[in-house]
């Protein structure tokens, strides 16, 4: 593992994937990487990353700004609304 790199497990419910990112990677790019690795259709607009109940927004912010630790488990949550 490189310096300033963290490993994250991301679960959508359908499946999960473990990926390594630089701490400065934008949340949006983490979402897109997970969507690609999990083989989903669509873009980051259809999902949001959640860590311990907190949605990681705005998605232009980097991982490090949300204090995501190494080996954290995040949820990739579909953005369907409750109405």
């Amino acid at each position, binding site marked *: 593992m490189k310096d300033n790199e963290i490993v994250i497990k991301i*679960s*959508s*419910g*359908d*499946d*999960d994937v473990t990926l390594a990112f630089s701490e400065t990677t934008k949340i949006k790019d983490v979402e897109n990487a997970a969507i690609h690795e999990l083989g*989903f259709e*669509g873009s980051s607009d*259809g*999902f949001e990353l*959640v860590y*311990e*109940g*907190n*949605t990681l927004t705005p998605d232009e912010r980097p991982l490090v700004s949300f204090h995501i630790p190494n080996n954290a*488990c995040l*949820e990739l*949550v*579909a*953005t*369907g*609304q*409750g*109405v």
Partner: protein
Amino acid sequence: MTTQSELMVQKELTAVEKYATAKGFQVAVVDTLTFVVKNLPSKNGEKYALHVHCEDYPNKPPIFRWCAPETFELESPKDTPKGGGGFFHGCGTPCAPWNRNSYKQFHSKAPHGDWNMEGWQTNSKIGQCTTIPRMIVKMCTELQSERYIGRAA
């Protein structure tokens, strides 16, 4: 003969069970089209159970109802979470296009007479929430969110 719905549920339930193991809650299978996710943790430590019935899924959305964890009694206020946002709807059901219980087509007290169950996956509010595991993840994260307040009774 195994139906299309049973095959879909079998496949998606495997993913739900894997996620449940990772998150520390349980899945109780009732029959080939019905299961209960038990001990869903909320942010204040209270636990909830969701009864999921999938007859005619995916042609129609599953039916999600809060229930008692042991008896599976449906929709008692003491087993129902409340909070902000549409998922903790005052009608006592997770209110979303992926829940059949939200449609007046399904029952008269449901909040949405403006939605059609057929083609539910194309409802403008559905987003990517089109599989049962994603629906379960959605409800888990809602219970952990600041929108959750506590029990309805």
